């Protein structure tokens, strides 16, 4: 899989699954799959340290989450030991349940972290930049300028720093950085002037969008509608109202962005090629996602929810749940085809 759209579909599908389950075994299966997939992708980029770094980081994160939760939450029946009650906030029982709860939270966070880490590994920077909606073309242009200038500015900073060191700059205090920062700023901003002149000379000109006010109203209205749907959802309002609000808000935002993007013509210098694996991946993910959501909304799925409260028990295991949790490794099989 190489195209951004296919990877985004993969991301959304995996995220929906991770966020809808709290069963630690399923999440662990997902984590394992993600680690295998990430290791494969990192090895392709000759980054052999990826697995080591990330395993260490994830273990720290899960450990920290477990400890913090157990210190701040004291409910549960299986008491391991008790801290003196007099200690502010952390004093009280340390229970097995709160440890388990914290660990599950850590697992969910780790899985989310890894998902995005793999997305960063698999997509190139220019593909990520292309994901900025066309309605934000001045912003996208600015980001492109920044990304283009970044390597040369880094190089220049290094050169100035070396020149300063040769001249005997000790580089100890903050003041010693003035002779580096100032030339860097001046030369780079001179470059910016040249760039803007050549942009003007080549005829680059941002058109003033005539319907800015209307689009703004649309965006505000859409955001407000989604926000209120979320708040109503917290208070268990009927699903019909929520559904209408979510769809309405989403549609308004989508249409506004599409409409104001359409007024801008653009040429594509680099076009993504859809290969066999991208098509397979995209279709597979969409089918999976639709199946999952429809099963979820008709309550046909086995219960994915798990909580250590009130009784600590072994999490239930079902075939369908396991089947959904191994999905995250799917791009690995496609990558043999690339």
């Amino acid at each position, binding site marked *: 899989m190489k195209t951004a759209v296919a990877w985004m579909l993969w991301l959304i599908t995996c995220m929906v699954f991770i966020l809808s389950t709290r069963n630690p075994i399923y999440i662990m299966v997902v984590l394992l799959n993600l680690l295998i997939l990430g290791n494969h992708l990192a090895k392709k980029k000759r980054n052999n340290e990826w697995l080591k770094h990330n395993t260490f980081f994830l273990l720290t994160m899960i450990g920290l989450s477990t400890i913090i939760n157990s210190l701040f939450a004291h409910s549960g029946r299986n008491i391991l030991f008790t801290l003196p009650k007099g200690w502010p906030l952390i004093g009280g029982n340390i229970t097995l349940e709160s440890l388990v709860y914290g660990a599950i939270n850590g697992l969910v966070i780790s899985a989310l972290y890894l998902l995005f880490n793999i997305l960063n590994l698999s997509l190139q920077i220019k593909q990520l930049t292309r994901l900025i909606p066309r309605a934000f073309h001045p912003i996208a242009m600015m980001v492109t300028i920044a990304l283009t200038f970044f390597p040369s500015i880094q190089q220049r900073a290094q050169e100035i720093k070396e020149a300063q060191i040769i001249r005997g700059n000790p580089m100890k205090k903050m003041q010693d950085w003035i002779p580096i920062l100032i030339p860097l700023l001046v030369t780079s901003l001179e470059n*910016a002037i040249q760039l803007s002149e050549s942009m003007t000379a080549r005829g680059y000109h941002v058109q003033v969008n005539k319907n800015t006010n209307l689009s703004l109203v649309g965006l505000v209205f859409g955001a407000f509608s989604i926000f209120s749907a979320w708040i109503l959802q917290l208070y268990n309002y009927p699903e019909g109202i929520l559904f209408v609000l979510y769809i309405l808000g989403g549609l308004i935002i989508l249409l506004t962005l599409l409409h104001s993007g359409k007024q801008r013509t653009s040429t594509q210098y680099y076009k993504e090629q859809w290969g066999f694996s991208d098509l397979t991946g995209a279709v597979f993910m969409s089918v999976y996602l639709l199946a999952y959501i429809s099963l979820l909304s008709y309550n046909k799925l086995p219960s994915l929810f798990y909580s250590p409260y009130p009784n600590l028990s072994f999490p239930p295991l079902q075939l369908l749940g396991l089947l959904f949790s191994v999905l995250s490794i799917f791009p690995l099989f496609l990558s043999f085809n690339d």
Partner: protein
Amino acid sequence: MKRRIKRILIDLIVLALGFLGLLSPFIFPQANSAATQGATFPIMISLIIVLCLFIVLFEAQTSLIDNKIMAFLGVLIAINAGLRFLENAIPGPAGFSPVFFLIILTGYFFGSRLGFLMGAMTLFVSALITGGVGPWLPGQMITAGWVGQSAALLKATVDIFKWEGRPIELILLSGFGAFWGFLFGAIMNLWFWPFLGAGQGQGFLQSAGFSQNVQRYTAYYLATSLIWDASRAVGNVIILAALSRPVLKILSRFKLRFSFQHREQSTT
């Protein structure tokens, strides 16, 4: 004038939506219930913040219609993203990041819109470069944007009292840096915290009142990120006190060169 009112209105809406989202566990106690929320809280908050970013960026990009400003900001963002890599090289306490220095000065010198763009886009670009795109990014972007935006308020204060060029200007800037060093951490923790504490009778107590939850959050904040944020605040103070004078001088020189306007000759 009309444009100004529009901008203030947009800012207020975005601030209200963003803070209502971030503070929702304090205001709407159900946001904390694991049964209705599960693990979706951080993602929903990120989504709402993305929508807020859409609104404010859509409005802010109308100040980018000039090629010069676009190139200027693009290059400044590249420099700032580069400074993030110098984190280890610049002497300073651990956890300190020089990234806020240019954001604050840009907002201070060029006004709230460019300050916001500078803050939000710096974090976006450096996330693209370092491979740090994730659900935490929208929160970081909007908070850094607020850093730049609020620096314009500082400028207004300095202008009113005519403190420009006096030592008190530097003191104010350093204090501002310290303030945001702490606040940035506190806001970024909000995104995350109900998720960590969610559960039965934990972190957030559903039955507990607003003040009690604030107390608990304060304790959590003190325990987890105070040291980190304190070193960021100290770093901001040091770097702003040492470097802002010469950098402001450079910026004021370039402001003249970047702000001229082409005007079409009227054909009679």
